């Protein structure tokens, strides 16, 4: 289950921020998967520079939330595991970005000295 819905009617944007995606490492994983069709764990590890343990833990949480899917493919005639954003994950990521932009836009401008 997602930590918070990305678009809850009647709630202010800050209350609708998806806390699962809000964690920086998971945001980065989601962002990489958002711009590609699919990627393997090694690619994500190289790009995010997370440790294998951290990456594995974040991937598990995202998979439990239904945001990413794991699919088996054949690469060089060997089975290969690819990770992909689900439709739900893609929508959640878009919603998170929209909500965050809204929250940041709503913040008062800092005073100029």
């Amino acid at each position, binding site marked *: 289950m997602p930590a918070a819905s990305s678009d809850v009617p009647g709630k202010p944007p800050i209350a609708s921020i998806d806390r699962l995606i809000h964690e920086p490492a998971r945001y980065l994983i989601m962002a990489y998967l958002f711009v590609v069709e*699919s990627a393997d764990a090694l690619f994500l590890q190289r790009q995010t520079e997370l440790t294998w343990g951290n990456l594995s833990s974040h991937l598990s949480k995202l998979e439990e939330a239904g945001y990413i899917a794991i699919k088996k493919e054949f690469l060089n005639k060997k089975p290969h595991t690819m990770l992909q954003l689900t439709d739900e994950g893609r929508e959640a990521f878009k919603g998170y970005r929209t909500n965050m932009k809204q929250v940041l836009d709503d913040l008062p401008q800092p005073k100029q000295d």
Partner: protein
Amino acid sequence: MQKGTDLKQIQRRVYMSYFQDGLWDILLGVFLVGWGVMIMFEFVAVMGGIWVAFFFIVLGLKRWLIYPRAGYIKIAEARRQQMKMVIMGVVLLLLGLAVSFLFDVGSQPAWIGEYFMFLFGAMMAIIIFVLGYWWKVDRWYVYAGLVLAAFAAHQWLYAPLNLSFIVPGVVVILCGLGLLLRFLRRYPKPAGEGPGASG
């Protein structure tokens, strides 16, 4: 974890990851050097064969050397289609260039005949520039500039034509080899399997 979170930067890093190993640079360099060798020895068929063979060698190296170190991605379908269109356009342009180079150009206006080699080099430079722009690889702009400068040297300083291909080609190959060595040092083959990396 030190990477930025800007989506455009992330997209750029993903596309750049295709070119960080220098293999496409080496392929471009071989292509340029091949033109020079072809002019020197008139090995048209042989060079054509070598280019095709080298293209498949690069694809093989990507598969066996690069992906096990850097990981594997599938880019989005829309981007893949656009890439196919650009590559097809470039191939057609290159074919057009080859035809214009290998066959008679005497029936063209006089100024085309006079500046033919520079125009030829400029078109080649534009293709390299467009590829660099499309793939978001800035160093390809430098390669395009090198090719243009080499053909300008041939047109106005009377440098040998084959060197107009070979000199930038060798520079590009050396850059590519440097990138490949840096890539291999930076990304050793992982000793164990990552979470879900394989199997």
